[in-house]
């Protein structure tokens, strides 16, 4: 896949970062607005699709560190289940941060209001965990699918693994 014209690349340079910021917004506002970890993570992962299409595989493959995003996946999953396990003092997935003050536990005033961002306890933490996991996972899927269609062009030999 070759890079597209300079117009497309410039537009990508300008808008790709807004895409990432919007994705992060969707992730951290998961408990207040529509969306959440998965949706926001998918938006951020679109950034990599954008870069791949605009700049082509020759530039994208060296830029994209697949081991880093593997770590994203693992860390996201571990953060998620870890949050669940910490609640085990009461029950599995117990929201032990809600209403406790601090970064995640402020209380919501009674009556109509526009929502308090840091009020949801572990739910925000889990949204972030899912977001990180989905960023890693979806962009890895994209990367491997792209490498898959390039496999026979690059390596020239068949895959090995199963001995038949």
């Amino acid at each position, binding site marked *: 896949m070759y890079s597209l014209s300079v117009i497309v690349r410039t537009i990508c340079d300008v808008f790709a970062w807004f895409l990432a910021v919007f994705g992060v917004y969707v992730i951290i506002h998961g408990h207040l607005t529509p969306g959440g970890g998965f949706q926001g993570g998918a938006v951020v992962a679109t950034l990599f699709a954008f870069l791949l299409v605009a700049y082509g595989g020759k530039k994208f493959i060296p830029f994209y560190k697949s081991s880093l995003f593997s770590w994203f996946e*693992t860390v996201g*999953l571990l953060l998620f289940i870890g949050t669940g396990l910490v609640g085990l003092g009461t029950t*599995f997935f117990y929201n032990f941060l809600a209403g406790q003050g601090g970064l995640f536990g402020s209380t919501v005033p009674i009556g109509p209001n526009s929502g308090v961002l840091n009020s949801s306890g572990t739910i925000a933490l889990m949204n972030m965990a899912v977001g990180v996991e989905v960023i890693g996972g979806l962009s890895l899927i994209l990367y491997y699918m792209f490498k898959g269609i390039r496999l026979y062009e690059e390596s020239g030999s068949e895959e090995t693994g199963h001995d038949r």
Partner: protein
Amino acid sequence: MSWHVHLPALVIAVPLLGAFIAPVASMLGKVARNFWLVGVSALTALLSVLLWQQVLTSGTAIYVMGAEAFNLSLPSGMSLPIRIILEVDAFSAFMAVVGSIAAFAGALFSTNYMERFSGLDKFAALYFLLTTGMLGMVLTGDLFNFFVFLEIASVASFGLVAFWRDRPEAIEASFKYMVVSTIGAMMILIAIAFLYGRYNAVSMAAVANALRLGYAEKIALVFLIIALAMKCGTVPMHMWTPDAYTEAPAGVTCLLIAVSQASLYGLFRVCFSIYGASLGSAVVPWTIIILGVLSMFIGVSMAVVQKEIKRLMAYHSVSQIGYMLLGLGVGLLALSDPQAMADYGFTAMKGGIYHLINYTMYKGLLFLTAGALYYAAGSRNLNDLGGLARTMPYTTFMFVIAAAAIAGLPPFNGFVSKLLIYESTFAVYPILSIMALVTSVLTLASFVKVFQTAFLGPAKAKLAQVKEVPPGMLLGMSVLTIVIIGLTLFPTWSLSNLVEPAAKALVNQAGYISAVIGGGL
């Protein structure tokens, strides 16, 4: 409050944690990965046994995820349960024990069986995810959650069936399974949507409590029965089983058997605990019985002609599912009539449930021995094998035990469960037990064929270099062998301690409802 109350959550959380840490453990090297794979599976099996013990001593366990207390199913005076609830009665706990033992044996077997291949960190993670999905399906008390765990198990098994991805057959099998089971999953989702639309609840107990049979409920029931019967491989919808069971690595096939049993569990949970007495007519029980008889007979007649050893066994698993459907279908037929239940219904259910554990154990073992043959001799085709009893004595011994058990030869556990099914179905309609007997004879015939061609006869020059398989694989097989021998030696103990509580729990719809709803609405 002892930590035992957390057991239902831990049984699901431990393999899930295992799946998420598996890539990290794999970075530490081969030994750490194998240790993790076997250790977490063993821990899961141990927790399942503890859970089963706890359920037997103190009754149905419920667990409310994220609540202030583990048993707070109706917080602040609400009339419908709102949180994710795990509900573990004796039947669920029994299924968890059966499934986690099969998962443990498969993991132990896979350590040596898979060591020649790359990508084993993914293998370990997917294996644990499949275990999690299977255990979640049997422990959950929530219809939507059941769907979620079903999908977790399905997606993990797509990956595992296609693990040898340079084989076109494996890709084909995985793709076929993916198409079929996605259609099935969508049908389950639609059925849940019907029930949710009618009753504003997805908790099984709440739906069961409010259920009045109408058009929406009937449509939902048809969708659920078709989809779940497809997932466990009954005859008109069985076409994915031979491919998927054949192409998956042997340790995975052992676990896939347990996963198909979890779908069977879902089928009976829906029929007995959600619809239960309000089923009314005999249409649904007879549908299940006819599906069972068809599966038994068509499955075995397809198996007799197979030449490839794993494919032959896969068709046998279609036919064995038929026995459980027959036994539990007869139980469902007798559900609304206490006299019939006492006469033959309960015996049929005991037979079906006992056959379920027997089937999982010996079919898992048969697939593992097939994997061992493939590992040692490099072929799954019966025409290429012969005389292996001399070089692979342990594998031969375990194969003989499993084959005798599946054929229902008298001292073995398969005989006990089949006898219970013959006796009780005879009371309903003699032709049913005749069909079951014929199936059993054909099963024996085809396993005699496998034993004779693969293990007996003159040694083949091509197979002169064949050695007995490595210790990890032998250990994995011997776990299941020990369970089979245990079930064989103590049929009375296992019937009264393992099977009867499970059958009673399945019949006791009111108990299932009141564990979550309390005194009722």
